[in-house]
Every structure is written in C-alpha cells, then in structure tokens.
C-alpha cells in the first residue's frame, strides 16, 4: 500500500458504503472508479431514506396532521442543510429539482419567458463553453432556436483548459447569460470563475455555474463565486437519485417567471388566473422529491462531518498519484490537464488505438468500473479528434491501491489487444 500525505482514513470510511463490499465476476472485488457518473451511497443516507418511509412519510406543506408536519419539517430542514453547505445568504434561494439537468433547463426557461432586463430574445446572446456537459449545451441550443438568440462559446486550449484569450469578443454587451462548468466531468479541468464573472458583470450578463462536479468534491461557497445561479445534483455527492439543486440570487428568483406550473407553486388559483408563491416554492411545482431531499440533507451531513476541505485534499493526493502512475502506462494519453493542478478527480485518457469500449470491458472483467464514451461532452471529443475516452474518476473512498489496480488492469488490456 502506498502512503500519501493528506489521505482520509479510507479503511474506516469505506465500511459506510455497503456496495464497496460487492464481489463481481466470481469473486473479484469491486474497484469503483466511475464517481463522476454517480457516487455511491453511504449507509447513513440509505438509513435515513428507509426511516423516512417507515416513520414520517406524508405530503408536504399542505397538512395539519403529525406526519405532514414531520415530513414538511424534514423536507424544509434539508433545504436549511443545503443552504448552509453552499453558504447561501438565504434558505429561500435553494430550489429542489430532480437533477442538475432540470436546474440548468430551469434557468434557460426562466430567461426565455422573462421580462426585461433578463429576457433572452433574438437580439441577445448566450455564452457557454466547448467543455460543457450536454445538459449545459442542449438547453441553450433549444433556447437559441426558440428565441433566435445567438449561441456563442469559449473554445479549448490543447492542454484542456478554457481559451479565454478572446473573452471580450465572446462576452459582449449583447450577452444575457454566461453558463459554464466549474469542474469539467470529462477533462477534469477546474475553470477560472473570477475572470469570467468579472467580464460578465462588466456587460451586465447573468452567470450560471454548473457545479455538478464541484459540489461533491470541494468546499462550495456561492457567495464567494459571485455567480447568479449555481446548479448541482444529489446523486454525485453521496445523495439519492432524483434530486438536484438550483441556487439563485433572491432578487432574481423574485423577478423571474415560473417554469413548471402546478400544486405547491401557487399563491391562489382561479380558472381565470393564478398568482405564485414566493421562491423557492414558485419553482417547485407538484409534490417534490421529499424523501430524496431528506436523503440529500443526510448526504450533506455526512460530507460535512468528514469535512469538504479534507475531502478535497484527499482527492488531490489521489489524483496526483493517479496522473503519475497513468503516465507510466505506454501509449496512454491524458485528455485534459496533464498535472493535478487546478483539476478535479476525473481523468480521461486514450490508450493507443484500443477503443475505450474495449478498454472498459476488459477492465470490467477484472472488477474495475470506469466509464467509456463521450461522457455527455461530445464536443470535447470532436475538439481533440477522438471518438471517445476512458475515464477514471475518484471520490473520498478511493485509495492508492485502486489506482494501482487500474494501472495493472490497463497493462492487461494492452496485452490482450496487443
């Protein structure tokens, strides 16, 4: 076992994750390196979910009976936890959605239906980047098609970073919204928020940060980011599936129009017209993912107890080790930053001309779970002229031993197809 400085006590911590005990393919131990796709769920979260259904389940906000009040308190309590986790100035700025994709679409739709000065229309421009997840590309393509707004984007440098050299031409007086990823799920790149926010503020554009790959892995402070909206997703941060978050600045949430209509989001309804509840409820139509929000609250408690700074430190050490070890593998080319500086714990690579699908399959036969494909970021593959990549991504429970297993596995892949 390799000892690296800054590692968490993974031996203890891995016991919290029942799935990490699983044996695959005749007894091979699971080496789970697909954390950028989804993280595993600790016992503490699974138990909270069961307890919710066994003890407190009810619809929220509408009841005077005990269960309804308990469920409401748990649901709204989860909002408090998330607000604190991201240092939101107000709990009412935290909107629960079903995933990060809905959060991103929510902003696109708010702006499409907004009044001035927010309205996106054919005279305005939208700015994204070439390293976005499809969930931060397609909503803007749809908005652009439907409003006539022009979609622009930042390109990438050869080493997998944003090319901001032409920032003043990309973000202009016409720009209404700049939406970009804080940490790329394919390249691992950690993007420079400040430069982009500064320019956006100069021209009066709003800023949406896709923090799906950041919230799970590092301290996230929405006030420090100075963005207007921040989106992330529960299942990548030890939480359940079916829950996402959009944080937005209160004045904006007050001014912007609703998206989905229905129960919970109204103030009063007649057949002729309706008025809407204040945020966050204005944006939470229908019965919310109650148990899932409660589960996310438990995940936040779990992560906070360990400490987000400690988790970031652990992952940095693991990533540094992984970069070093991977670069020892012949014919392996990292797609993205070639060091552990300003990068997250997802590393994409190609292995000679062995197709990633084959790499992934042969690794799987050894119990090693990685992701292969375009990782919902196909423009990045186009940019670097590759059909797909293999991606290994780490989390708080990842160990140097797992990196060693990956490297051994890759050797085996090379021999197999050699």
């Amino acid at each position, binding site marked *: 076992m390799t000892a690296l400085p800054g590692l968490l006590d993974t031996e203890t911590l891995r016991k919290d994750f029942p799935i990490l005990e699983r044996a695959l393919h005749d007894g091979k131990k699971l080496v789970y390196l697909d954390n950028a796709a989804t993280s595993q769920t600790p016992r503490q979260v699974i138990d909270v979910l069961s307890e919710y259904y066994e003890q407190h389940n009810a619809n929220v*906000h*509408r*009841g*005077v009976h005990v269960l*309804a*009040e308990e469920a*409401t*308190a748990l649901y709204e309590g989860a909002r408090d936890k998330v607000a604190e986790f991201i240092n939101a100035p107000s709990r009412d700025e935290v909107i629960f959605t079903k995933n990060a994709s809905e959060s991103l679409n929510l902003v696109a739709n708010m702006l499409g239906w907004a009044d001035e000065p927010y309205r996106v229309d054919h005279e305005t421009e939208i700015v994204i980047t070439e390293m976005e997840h499809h969930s931060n590309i397609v909503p803007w393509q749809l908005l652009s098609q439907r409003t006539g707004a022009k979609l622009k984007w930042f390109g990438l440098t050869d080493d997998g970073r944003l090319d901001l050299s032409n920032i003043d031409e990309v973000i202009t007086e016409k720009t209404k919204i700049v939406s970009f990823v804080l940490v790329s799920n394919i390249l691992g790149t950690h993007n420079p928020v400040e430069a982009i926010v500064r320019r956006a503020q100069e021209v009066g554009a709003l800023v949406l940060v896709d923090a799906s790959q950041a919230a799970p892995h590092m301290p996230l402070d929405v006030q420090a980011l100075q963005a207007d909206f921040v989106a992330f997703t529960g299942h990548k941060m030890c939480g359940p599936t079916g829950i996402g978050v959009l944080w937005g600045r209160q004045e904006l949430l007050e001014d912007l129009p609703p998206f989905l209509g229905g129960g919970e989001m*109204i*103030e*009063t309804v007649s057949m002729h017209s309706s*008025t809407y*509840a204040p945020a966050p409820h204005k944006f939470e139509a229908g019965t919310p993912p109650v148990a899932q929000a409660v589960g996310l609250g438990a995940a936040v408690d779990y992560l906070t107890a360990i400490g987000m700074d400690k988790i970031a430190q652990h992952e940095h050490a693991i990533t540094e080790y992984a970069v070093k070890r991977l670069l020892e593998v012949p014919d392996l080319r990292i797609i993205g930053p070639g060091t552990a500086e300003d990068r997250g714990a997802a590393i994409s690579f190609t292995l000679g001309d062995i197709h990633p699908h084959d790499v992934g399959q042969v690794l799987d036969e050894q119990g090693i779970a990685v992701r292969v494909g375009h990782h919902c970021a196909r423009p990045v593959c186009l940019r670097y002229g590759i059909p797909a990549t293999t991606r290994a991504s780490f989390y708080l429970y990842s160990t140097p031993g797992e990196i060693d297993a990956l490297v051994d596995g890759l050797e085996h892949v090379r021999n197999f197809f050699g």
Partner: protein
Amino acid sequence: MYQEVILDHYKHPHGRGLRPGDAEVHHVNPTCGDEITLRVKYDGSRIEDVSYEGQGCSISQASASVLNDLLVGKDLAEAQKIQEVFLELMQSKGKLEPDDAMEEVLEDAVAFAGVSKYPARVKCALLSWMAWKDATAQALGAGTDAERKTA
C-alpha cells in the same frame, strides 16, 4: 392549542366588520384558503380603528379579534413593538415560555403560544397581523414592507 381564550375570541370576535379606513388589504393563506380583508384607520400615528371581515379557522379568526383588542388606540411605534413580540412568539416553535414581560405586552395573545408548535397553523395566527402590517404601510405610505400583493 385550543385555549379557552382562543375559543372565546373565535366565538365572540371583537371589532369584526368592515368600517371606513385609510387603506384596505386582502390577504390569503394559500395553503388552506383562510382569507381576510382588513382596513386600518389612522389619526396621525395613532391607530383609530382596525376593522376586518374574513373566513378561516378559529385560530385566524381569534387572532384577528385579539389584534383588534391590542392595537386599536395604540400609537404606531407601540403597535409595531406588539406585532414584533407576537411574531417572535409565533416563530418560537413551541420553545418559548411567555414570561411576565411578554404577557404584559401581549395580554390575551399569549394564549397563542401553543399554536407555535404547529407550523401549518402559525400562518393562520399571523394572517391578520401580516395584513395589518401591509395595510399600515399602504396607509402611511411608509417603508418597503408591502411585498405581498393584495387583490
């Protein structure tokens, strides 16, 4: 939560009915349909009348009655003090035991302490108080507190 005092105010509300005023607001509790129409009449900064009409549960009705008792005749500053203390009590989640000082300010309204344990009912108890605050802001053109729309 159903203190004798509350049931009394519910069954025999004080000052109910709409009388002339300087401003009128209509507030709704969207989760349950409690409604109140409330008017305030000021003589300078003195509250000359708070009149109201509404439909709703015992808590919201009794609370309006208590409000009328407590605020009519008071000076605005004093009334705001009372409103703040009542708000504090209602937001205490049942964890605040009203002391003598609070009882002096709130009189009958301390009976609502038990309601603060029930989040769904806190809104009922506060409905008339929020309406009064809003109507006052409109009547005196003061401040930025009229954020709730009136119909």
